[in-house]
């Protein structure tokens, strides 16, 4: 079913998707003319397939649960923020704070993501085929952040846990983020992610792994900075 945002109110479209009509069993939707509107497909909680044709604004697919959402364009701030499950696939670039605080699900970004990608992520898996901006993985707590390109300044600053895999250059590491050894089990895990995201031009063995040095977990009386 096509939902044209030039003809329909955004609020009505979101309401329709949040309250699926069970009698019709319609689960495939295409949203046209998004024109940079905010909060498109926010708060969906049923299994369904949605394709958004064009660029969207802030918080697209926010709080997503179970839905499979593809955006054929760029996304604004906070795509898939606080996602619980399901899949969000951005075919273009993403603005800052992509996948912020997300608990679960899979976020794939074909282009680049700007600053603070995966900020405070709590279990989501994020795969960026391009590069990420500064302070990505800031205060991240759980999940996997996989970047096929480069990472900006202060990667993984103040992170609790989270596995970060970067193939390209890292401009600098944030506080308490360190490079860790890539064991066989990590390579195997990464291989699965790459296969799942249909990434064929990058080898899991070429990635470096980063994570928490766990030095900020407890207050240290001797710290004098």
């Amino acid at each position: 079913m096509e939902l044209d945002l030039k003809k329909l109110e955004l609020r009505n479209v979101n309401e329709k998707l949040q309250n699926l009509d069970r009698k019709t069993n319609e689960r495939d939707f295409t949203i046209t003319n998004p024109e940079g509107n905010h909060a498109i497909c926010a708060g969906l909680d049923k299994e369904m397939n949605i394709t958004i044709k064009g660029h969207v604004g802030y918080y697209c697919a926010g709080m997503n649960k179970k839905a499979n959402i593809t955006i054929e364009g760029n996304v604004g701030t906070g795509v898939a923020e606080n996602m619980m499950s399901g899949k969000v696939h951005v075919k273009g670039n993403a603005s800052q704070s992509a996948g912020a605080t997300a608990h679960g699900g899979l976020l794939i970004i074909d282009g680049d993501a700007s600053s603070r990608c995966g900020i405070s992520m709590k279990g989501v898996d994020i795969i960026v085929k391009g590069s990420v901006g500064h302070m990505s993985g800031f205060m991240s707590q759980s999940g996997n952040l996989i970047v096929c390109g480069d990472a900006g300044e202060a990667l993984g600053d103040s992170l609790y846990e989270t596995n970060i895999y970067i193939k390209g250059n890292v401009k600098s590491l944030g506080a308490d983020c360190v490079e860790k050894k890539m064991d066989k089990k990590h390579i195997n895990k990464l291989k699965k992610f790459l296969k799942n995201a249909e990434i064929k031009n990058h080898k899991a063995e070429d990635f470096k792994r980063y994570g928490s040095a766990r030095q900020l977990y407890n207050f240290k009386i001797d710290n004098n900075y």
Partner: protein
Amino acid sequence: MCGIVGIYLKNEKLKDSLGSLLSKMLINMGSRGPDSAGFAIYKKEEKEKFKYSICINKLSFKDFEERINKHLDAELIKNSDHVILKTSVKPEPMLTILKNHFQDVALVGYGKSIEIFKQVGDPSEVVKKFKLDDYSGSHAIGHTRMATESAITTDGSHPYSTGEDECLVHNGSLSNHNNLRRKLKKDGVNFDSENDTEVAAGYISNNLSNKKNLKETLKDSLKDLDGFYTFITGTKDGFAVLRDEIACKPAVIAETDDYVAIASEFQAMAHLPKVNNAKIFEPEPGVVYSWGN
């Protein structure tokens, strides 16, 4: 919050629609700034003529016309509560005349090609009032304001003039503006409001008058201005964009063969011709981008 927008035409054929393109951008950004709006539009310069954009909201046009005729020979073009004064009188003597005899009006911009209009009110009302849709030109920048650092007034509205044919719009807030204002006052820079952006404008114009170029000045502002900002600075030939290094304040650029546009949010550009095929990117933090300069 605030919204900032700008458009620079590469294709001259679009010049008659510059005003209407910018107008829709400003109306859309009303959601980020409902308190006041303003825009600077750049037109072809006329030989030996200077244009002074003056807000006369405390006077009637007739009063102003009578008084100005006593001091100089000028052509006055009225647009709502603003007047574009065209004259051969150069900025230095003109600024002295205005300072000594016209303290009840506000000079909002001057130069050979720039015209600035700004006023309090919802952006959709402001663009209607100044008939922005009818304007043509080569490039333009604009601002919609959500007041945070100072009151909702005309002199708290953007764009701010930073010198001949130069102006600034700002999304963000500066935290060291009081210190900086004090320093700049010592260097002889005048301020009309308590607004933080006016300090940034004063800083830029002061550096430019000290023979620094615009790119150097913007680079220097990264170390001298403390706060969050995305700036667009307009000049006679184009505009430049700078985001602070933390880059909390948004900006997105769309470039095609016909134009370069910038806005706080993509939705402000969704109406631009062939924007879906444009090269769309976010300006990187701490990097000066410029077009036409």
